[in-house]
């Protein structure tokens, strides 16, 4: 296929049917868009050509200023343009602002017109009409006090809309309604009385506004997810319905509450009232810091807005910066729900940084973003709280008091209100972790840092290695009792999810210890409900999801070593682990408390966190294993070999590599070769841990085979099922340098053959290994594995390149043969060792790369992609994980593979895989510009490595445009399905769905007989039938060479491609596929003029007086069966598309 997308207009036609098949169900719109994107002229970057006059004209002062500004304030001009573009996208247009303002004026008037009511007891709610329910759980119900409705004393717009930092979509305008003083009484701060009045106030308001046809929808929600503080959502009627949501927050009149009563050490919810019992026995009332904060927040709404508007108004860059930070938070799902790091918090943080002069008002938005991230990355607010309060009044509480009550401390200017009160320590650590990653990304000066930082969503399932769901959350109520969280429940007003979250995460963090890098929890989404309904219960918040970011080095151990038995810490250790803790004596003589987990294989060791979590939750919080759904190893089954029971192949791969190491030692020590062996390098995927199914040792049962006595080899028998597939593993063997080699390519090949023969002889003589030599390689049987040793001569590619010009000058020109040889003997060993290195660094690499390869092959697209290219894409996930951290589990690696494949702009950018970190920023920039200049000559998919900076050698032979496009489409469809299955384990479908290929797009299906598919048992869905493959399970002495590389489906495919390669494409899954998909090429079905070289399977017909050639489909379909006699079960022609 043509390598250049620009020149491939003709070939794109081939793609049409494939696309049609794949996206048949999609809406027309998306198809149209794809068609647009595919037109070759647009959507492809061209090298810029500027005339000399344009380049060297005198600069204007304006231009100079802009250039200077870019240099000073932004990282590069591209970044500046991108930031400007993004701000344009998220900011609100003036036109819309006007419409919103008009709406707000109307809202104001209508609110003021709501009639008052007469005074009633708080518990007497009969005056409320039937159509509205109080948006609050009134537990306990009895509260003293009276309520009456009066129109608000003041209606003010607060929040981001006023500051100009609100971002699209979902524009919210916060409006504060100051309740008149007459409604409130003394001591309203006590026992939720203020909140009850607030709720009733909203209920009455809602009931009246809902009758007004001016509003499209009126419903309740919670302010920041806090269930004591409902708010009213108003939306305009008609076409503006999606334009804006106005949120009404009732708040007390200024100075109504005395801040000193609401300090974190004070109690405002009496136990006697809350628990309905006397508190004689208890030593005193527990403080209610969260309750106090929620009251305080309402009093400070306006003051905060004033502060923010003065600070943010002082420089345009600050507002931009806040908008960027909001986008940043939102992409990381950090800003939603109770305890989220909301836009308000980040604005306050910017204000704090301005006040401490870390941010200057002249800074650009990008610099504000950078400084804030820098601050977040380096400051731990859980230890060192910060305060905006400038006055040093001794009556104010100290920061330490706040640290006692809250995990994260950030005080506002009053010194009494902790704006981060609801933020949990885990959330803050997650923010900090994200900031650190982002800073590293910004510092690396990567070209696409903007895209990765602000444009890439980081959903939990793709960001964390393992995920666990707790369901139903009502179990947490029992957990609260078990954990003795009575006072916390009182503080949280009965919200057991929030009350239990902190202690649970601390517990798990403690238990996971060195295995854990970061633990994050989902924040329940803020509910929204109709005014005629009761507010949703806590148990309706759905699933509590925890994300674990694992530390690969901690996963290797099965032992949790505790303190020595006589140490005082031992008791705490025993308390943590309960019955799992046992005394053990270690090799150094110490007797220690220890916990040992059962895990035999790497895959099971990766899942130790699961054992830890379920044990701790059951032991401490009474949450049974059935309520914990741990998502970590669901995909492991897909890379588990047919005979493996526990592991996912890592052990088998390691066994092969050990055997290979032994062999290479033997080769180094060989005596009697004319030249000694200087290097032995593996090139087979097994030797870089990326073979999907590692080979198992083969001990053939001789009776199952024919024997060739002379060559000591076995040959399959036609009357038996196909024997087991034994793939020889290629190893390149370099010899020491010598001047004795002939200087002619043909002669070199003969000498190499002589070396192969000699090698076989010596290995048999000196080490008793069974060997078989051919002209190009020697197969060596060792411990049941077969290695294919290829002797290489370093100068041979050079010899193949040499050409003598007529003047006798020797020039070097690349030829296909020299390139191939160089690739196989030079580049491939380098790549293999580099990827081997990646595996040593990141233990999850093997699993992720194999899952990725497995998936591509399961989609029948495996032959389009070389092994190496897929391995490199997988390596890119580990070497360039931005904006994530490197995956520590195959599952998340695979998800990111799908994401990378489906979103990467293969047309306009090369995938640079910086193996061994050999490339610096300049190198990469050079490679990118070289790529642009040479785009049309490069293959469709371009992967550059430090060893291969220009040619992308591993993708030279494919994929074609169509195959790559198909992969992109499939990946984009598979990703959401798989993520949904992982996030909602109770939903329909199973995890293998995305591994089953769509077959309805193929024109012909060739069904194969499993009897002659040697790798039949590797299929995605384990087949029912199994055949004897002529192997023993126990080691036997091996005297005869097993059948090597005999795979009938592959041989069949090779024949099909040779015969019909220009009429059709053939698709097959080498891992146990039972079907070959055939797709006719529409271009070759066009009648063609008579041509001797283009006859292949066609016949001549007369067409409108012209002689034309068309494929002879009936005969070809019969040929499919003839060529694959014995293997082919049926040939199904499924479409009539070929009927020309």
């Amino acid at each position: 296929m043509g390598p250049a997308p620009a020149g491939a207009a003709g070939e794109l036609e081939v793609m049409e049917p494939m696309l049609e098949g794949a996206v048949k169900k999609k809406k027309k719109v998306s198809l149209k868009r794809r068609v647009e994107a595919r037109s070759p002229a647009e959507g492809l970057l061209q090298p810029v050509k500027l005339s000399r006059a344009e380049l060297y004209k005198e600069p204007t002062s304006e231009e100079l200023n802009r250039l200077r500004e870019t240099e000073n304030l932004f990282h590069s001009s591209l970044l500046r343009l991108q930031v400007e573009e993004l701000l344009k996208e998220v900011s609100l247009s003036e036109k819309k602002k006007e419409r919103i303002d008009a709406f707000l004026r109307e809202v104001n008037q209508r609110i003021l017109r709501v009639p008052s009511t007469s005074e009633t007891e708080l518990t007497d709610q009969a005056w409320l009409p039937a159509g509205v329910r109080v948006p609050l759980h009134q537990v306990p119900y009895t509260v003293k006090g009276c309520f009456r409705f009066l129109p608000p004393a003041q209606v003010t717009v607060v929040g981001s809309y006023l500051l100009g930092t609100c971002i699209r979509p979902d524009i919210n305008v916060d409006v504060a309604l100051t309740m008149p003083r007459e409604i409130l009484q003394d001591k309203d701060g006590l026992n939720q009385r203020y909140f009850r009045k607030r709720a009733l106030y909203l209920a009455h308001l809602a009931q009246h506004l809902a009758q007004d046809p001016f509003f499209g929808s009126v419903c309740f929600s919670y302010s920041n997810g806090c269930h004591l503080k409902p708010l009213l959502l108003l939306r305009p009627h008609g076409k503006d319905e999606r334009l804006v949501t106005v949120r009404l927050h009732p708040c007390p009149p200024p100075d109504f509450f005395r801040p000193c009563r609401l300090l974190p050490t004070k109690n405002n919810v009496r136990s006697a009232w809350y628990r309905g019992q006397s508190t004689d026995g208890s030593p005193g009332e527990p403080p209610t810091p969260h309750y106090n904060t929620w009251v305080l927040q309402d009093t400070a709404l306006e003051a905060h807005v004033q502060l923010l508007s003065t600070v943010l108004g002082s420089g345009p860059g600050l507002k931009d910066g806040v908008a960027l930070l909001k986008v940043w938070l939102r992409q990381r799902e950090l800003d939603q729900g109770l305890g989220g790091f909301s836009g308000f918090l980040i604005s306050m943080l910017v204000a704090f940084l301005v006040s401490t002069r870390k941010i200057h008002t002249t800074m650009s938005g990008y610099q504000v973003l950078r400084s804030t991230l820098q601050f977040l990355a380096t400051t731990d607010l859980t230890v060192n709280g910060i305060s905006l309060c400038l006055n040093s009044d001794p009556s104010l509480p100290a920061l330490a008091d706040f640290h006692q009550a809250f995990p994260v401390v950030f005080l506002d200017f009053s010194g009494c209100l902790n704006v981060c009160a609801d933020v949990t320590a885990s959330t803050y650590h997650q923010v900090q972790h994200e900031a650190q990653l982002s800073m590293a990304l910004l510092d690396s000066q990567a070209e696409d840092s903007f895209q990765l930082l602000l444009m890439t969503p980081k959903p939990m399932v793709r960001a964390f290695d393992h995920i666990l769901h707790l369901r139903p959350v009502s179990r947490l109520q029992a957990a609260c009792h078990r954990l003795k969280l009575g006072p916390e429940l009182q503080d949280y007003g009965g919200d057991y999810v929030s009350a239990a979250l902190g202690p649970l995460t601390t517990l798990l963090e403690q238990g996971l210890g060195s295995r854990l890098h970061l633990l994050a929890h989902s924040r329940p989404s803020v509910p929204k409900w109709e005014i005629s309904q009761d507010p949703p219960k806590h148990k309706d918040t759905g699933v509590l999801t925890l994300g674990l970011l694992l530390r690969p080095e901690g996963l290797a151990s099965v032992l949790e070593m505790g303190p020595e038995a006589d140490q005082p810490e031992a008791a705490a250790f025993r308390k943590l682990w309960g019955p799992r803790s046992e005394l053990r004596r270690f090799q150094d003589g110490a007797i220690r408390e220890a916990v040992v987990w059962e895990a035999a294989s790497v895959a099971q060791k990766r899942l130790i966190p699961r054992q830890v979590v379920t044990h701790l939750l059951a032991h401490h919080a009474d949450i049974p294993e059935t309520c914990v759904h741990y998502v970590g190893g669901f995909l492991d089954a897909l890379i588990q070999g047919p005979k493996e029971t526990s592991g996912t192949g890592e052990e088998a791969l390691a066994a092969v590599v050990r055997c290979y190491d032994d062999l290479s030692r033997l080769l180094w020590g060989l005596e009697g070769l004319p030249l000694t062996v200087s290097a032995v390098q593996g090139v087979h995927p097994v030797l870089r841990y990326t073979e999907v199914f590692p080979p198992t040792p083969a001990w053939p049962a001789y009776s199952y085979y024919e024997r060739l006595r002379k060559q000591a080899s076995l040959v399959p028998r036609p009357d038996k099922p196909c024997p087991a597939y034994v793939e020889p593993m290629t190893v390149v063997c370099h010899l020491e340098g010598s001047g004795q080699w002939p200087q002619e390519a043909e002669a070199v090949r003969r000498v190499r053959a002589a070396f192969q023969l000699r090698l076989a002889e010596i290995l048999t003589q000196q080490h008793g290994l069974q060997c078989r030599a051919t002209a190009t390689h020697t197969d060596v049987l060792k411990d049941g594995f077969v290695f294919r040793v290829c002797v290489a001569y370093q100068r041979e590619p050079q010899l193949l390149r040499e050409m003598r010009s007529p003047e006798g000058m020797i020039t070097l020109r690349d030829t296909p043969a020299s390139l191939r040889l160089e690739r196989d003997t030079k580049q491939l060993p380098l790549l293999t060792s580099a990827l081997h290195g990646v595996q040593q660094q990141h233990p999850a690499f093997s699993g992720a790369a194999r899952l990725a390869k497995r998936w591509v092959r399961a989609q029948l697209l495996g032959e389009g992609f070389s092994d190496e290219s897929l391995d490199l894409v997988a390596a890119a996930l580990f070497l360039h994980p931005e904006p994530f951290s490197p995956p520590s589990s195959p599952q998340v690696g695979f998800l990111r593979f799908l994401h990378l494949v489906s979103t990467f702009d293969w047309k306009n950018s090369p995938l640079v895989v910086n193996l061994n970190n050999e490339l610096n920023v300049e190198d990469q920039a050079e490679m990118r510009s070289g790529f642009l200049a040479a785009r049309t000559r490069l293959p469709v998919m371009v992967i550059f490595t430090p060893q291969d900076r220009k040619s992308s050698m591993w993708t030279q032979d494919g994929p074609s445009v169509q195959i790559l496009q198909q992969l992109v489409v499939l990946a984009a469809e598979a990703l959401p399905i798989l993520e949904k299955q992982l996030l909602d384990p109770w939903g329909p479908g199973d995890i293998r769905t995305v591994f089953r290929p769509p077959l309805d797009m193929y024109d012909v299906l060739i069904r194969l007989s499993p009897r002659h598919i040697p790798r039949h048992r590797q299929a995605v869905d384990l087949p029912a039938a199994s055949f004897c493959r002529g192997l023993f399970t126990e080691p036997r002495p091996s005297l005869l060479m097993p059948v090597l590389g005999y795979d009938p489906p592959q041989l069949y495919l090779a024949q099909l491609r040779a015969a019909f390669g220009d009429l059709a494409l053939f698709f097959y899954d080498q891992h146990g596929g039972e079907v070959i998909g055939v797709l006719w090429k529409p271009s070759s079905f066009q009648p063609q003029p008579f041509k001797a070289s283009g006859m292949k399977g066609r016949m001549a017909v007369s067409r409108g007086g012209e002689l034309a050639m068309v494929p002879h489909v009936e005969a070809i379909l019969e040929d499919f069966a003839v060529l694959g006699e014995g293997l082919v079960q049926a040939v199904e022609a499924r479409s009539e598309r070929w009927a020309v």
Partner: protein
Amino acid sequence: MTRTACTHTHSTSQHPPPPPTYAKWKEWGCGHRDGTKGDIEEGSLVAQLASASCVWWWWGGAWCSLNLTHRCRPGPTSLPAIPVKFSEKQQASHYLYVREHSVREGATSTWPQKRTLFVLNVPPYCTKECLSRLLSCCGSVQSVELQAKPDLAESPKEPSSKFFDPKPIPGFQVAHVVFQKPGGVVAALALKGPLLISTESHPVKTGVHKWISEYADSVLDPEALRAEVDTFMEAYDQKMAEEEAQAKEEEGVPDEEGWVKVTRRGRRSALPRTEAASLRVLEREKRKRARKELLNFYAWQHRETKMEHLAQLRKKFEEDKQRLELMRAQRKFRPY
């Protein structure tokens, strides 16, 4: 699909218009006329006269003309098509297209004139032996040569080694069948068919049986390999020795102008005559010159450096703008 056989009359006996003249040839824009290999693809229809009564084409290494005025069913004078099937069981059949092998006057061919049949569209399961058996009914066959595509060079194949040049997997092929007598060709052109490739008496292996026998064949005898390598290397050593002897002989002998060639023998010649070496020398010269040059010394140099920097920035800016335009088109600025 309707099956209509080829309908061209191959006019050799009648009077075709003369082959295109050079001027005509240029007019059609087809390069030079005595199209050697590489200029004209085999079998391509190169020119159609205005009257559309005759087509000239390059086929089988010769100019042929096709008369388009007579279209008829397959017959003795048209491009004959012989149906061929794998066995009785198959319903549809492929067609072998055959004609007498002929070359342009003056061109040489390894295959004898008159006695050679040129066959197109030979199915992949049809072997040499098979083709020879199928056509032996027309006369005794001397040899059969199968090729992946019509090759003009017609050079006698070097004896290829089964160890070093493994045979490629066959697709559809073309064949040159040499009969012992010219009558065979005539008989073959009139053959009706359908021919059966695999019969009871001569079964042809396909599928699993074929792969197993191929696997058995691929397990080679190392001794035979050793013997072949030894023979080759002996010949090679002898050739090298002869060359050296000749070079030695020429050494010190002045040529007709009186020049004496002096060569340094040994592993390293003084300066290898390679492109890389000459490039290295050039590079060294360039560096030497660059060292002598002064940078930012004169005021104009300074000015130019600044301007150059500005131009670089401008170029980068343009590039960035283009990139941004593309991103905008791809809707890359919708954050969520």
